[in-house]
């Protein structure tokens, strides 16, 4: 079997606050194969975006990475010095940010923001070459080159997110992290953009970590899916297997909360309650207060992630016995 391109090992992130640290990501381990599309899903505040930013080490304070490793092509990004990390950023790992509105610098033109990326990595020998390449990149996401001179506020939300994708692909990265790339967009633009990303992914073959809270979209796009709940990874499985045979009660609840793409005749229902505060997570399994099938053990001991098949694992006392 091939070596994973990205291997997250026991990664933990804390938000330092006046009343002590709040754990936003708790001992998470996850692998990505080259060219693989892995979906990461969970409710808001479950640690998905925190993980994405931790991989690139761009977590804004007061968040601190408190433990673990992020092995990318065999090298630990967390142990790398700033200079080496800077070259690694974007040349190998790129990211499309959550909010199309706020991810572009309002005072620089779109062209400048693509060109400075190219220039910073020596990917364009001259300003003219950088412009030509920037125009070409805009072309690949369906934006006309005369938009190079536009400022972000002159573009629609969808166009801005396309620019974000063009910037991400500028240096032909091996891994692209999509952090809820379509959250701020309407449904039609969302579908267009996702189809475009899929198309580009098929053509160029980069690996994708696709973060979203929309399980339906994810199951269409991803090869493998990881489900997060309250800062922990609770289940990971190939997309097809997850859809048909999810084992964790939380995943099952999530699946029931989204309409099926194949129009299966299932009643939609939401999971009662809301995610726990990370400041004081419940004892035992973090999902037990909302779990319909919880037993005494769930209230006392925290379940470990246990393998259920070649690529399937879940953290639940009931499935692991």
């Amino acid at each position, binding site marked *: 079997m091939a070596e994973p391109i990205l291997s997250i090992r026991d990664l933990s992130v804390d938000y330092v606050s006046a009343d002590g640290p709040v754990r936003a990501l708790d001992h998470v381990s996850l692998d990505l194969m080259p060219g693989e599309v892995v979906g990461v899903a969970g409710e808001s505040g479950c640690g998905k975006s925190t993980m994405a930013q931790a991989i690139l080490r761009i977590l804004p304070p007061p968040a601190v990475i408190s433990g673990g490793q992020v092995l990318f092509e065999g090298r630990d990004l967390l142990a790398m010095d700033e200079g080496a990390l800077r070259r690694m950023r974007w040349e190998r790992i790129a990211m499309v940010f*959550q909010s199309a509105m706020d991810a572009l*610098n309002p*005072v620089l033109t779109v062209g400048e923001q693509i060109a400075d990326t190219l220039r910073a990595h020596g990917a364009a020998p001259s300003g003219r070459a950088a412009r030509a390449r920037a125009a070409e990149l805009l072309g690949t996401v369906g934006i006309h080159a005369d938009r190079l001179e536009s400022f972000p*506020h002159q573009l629609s939300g969808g166009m801005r997110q396309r620019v974000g994708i063009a910037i991400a692909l500028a240096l032909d990265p091996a891994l692209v992290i999509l952090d809820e790339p379509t959250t701020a967009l309407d449904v039609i633009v969302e579908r267009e953009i996702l189809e475009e990303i899929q198309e580009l992914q098929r053509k160029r073959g980069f690996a994708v970590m696709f973060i979203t809270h929309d399980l339906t979209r994810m199951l269409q796009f991803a090869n493998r899916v990881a489900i997060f709940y309250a800062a922990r990874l609770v289940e990971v499985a190939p997309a097809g297997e997850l859809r048909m045979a999810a084992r964790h009660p939380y995943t099952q609840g999530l699946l029931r909360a989204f309409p099926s793409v194949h129009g299966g005749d299932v009643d939609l229902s939401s999971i009662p309650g809301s995610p726990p505060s990370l400041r004081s997570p419940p004892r035992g399994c973090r999902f037990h207060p909302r779990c319909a099938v919880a037993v005494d053990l769930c209230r006392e001991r925290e379940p470990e992630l246990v393998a259920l098949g070649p690529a399937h694992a879940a953290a639940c006392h009931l499935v692991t016995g």
Partner: protein
Amino acid sequence: MRFILQRLGFYLLAAWAALTLNFFLPRLMPGDPATALFARFRGQLRPEAMQALREAFGLTPEPLLGQYITYLGHVLRGDFGVSVAYFPSPVSTIIGTGLLWTMFLAGTAVAVSFVLGTLLGVAAAWWRGGWMDTLLPPALALLGAFPYFWLAMVALYVFGFQLAWFPLGHAYADDLTPGMNLPFLASVLRHAALPVGTVVVATLGGWMLSMRNTMVSVLGSDYVNLARAKGLPPSRVVLRYAARNALLPSVTGFGMALGFVLGGSLLTEIVFSYPGQGYLLLQAVQSQDYPLMQGIFLVITLAVLGANWLVDIAYLWLDPRTREGS
């Protein structure tokens, strides 16, 4: 372009309103300045002087509207009447020299303070929690909290009188003739050092803190995060992405400050006997020189409006989002 003209139109309207107020306010007061002045001299002035004073204030028997039009005409030609204290010099010449010195002194002080404070703010936010971020703001806030005149007098006493590093007053040494020669310019700089220095010390903290705070929030924004993720060199992330955006609110403050210092350098100029506008205003008030006071108030108003217009133009250049429809 249309935006600039629109703003210019607005400021012209505001200037006209200020001129009109300047005309009507004295006339709304009971009595008139000429009578008040005449009374103050308790018979030492001859009755003919009363008539001269009334004319100097534009208090002719003409109807109010006619007076108003004459007044506007005079102001447009730069004629603010004749100073009482410096009789018979016209107000415009007196204000002219004072204005130049004030523009030099206050302009330098505000510019130095703004640039230095902004740079310190950028540095403090970038190395958040470092010594610059923890020590400087409270120290500068402390200095800024002293009454300015006290700070200025202490500086004058220590550096001017005790140590004699700097001259005690005036804009240049008395034995020099003003002109574009090295000794004169050097003397001007030496004389400006203490007044400029004290203003900078007193106002630096404000600029630094406001820039630091905006900078900290901009540093947490998605586009700065993206800039870092893109692997841009730190200098570009700080300057082109973070500071460039954090500067915008400060520029508004800079325009306001620039306008207000033209009138507000009063204390500096009094402590350092600097022949600027504030010093003139003090003298005008002490000698009941109404034409001079009116002229100075008008110049201050116009300076505030002009500075704001310049800031509007600078903003247009700095923030593309304001360029819409232009």
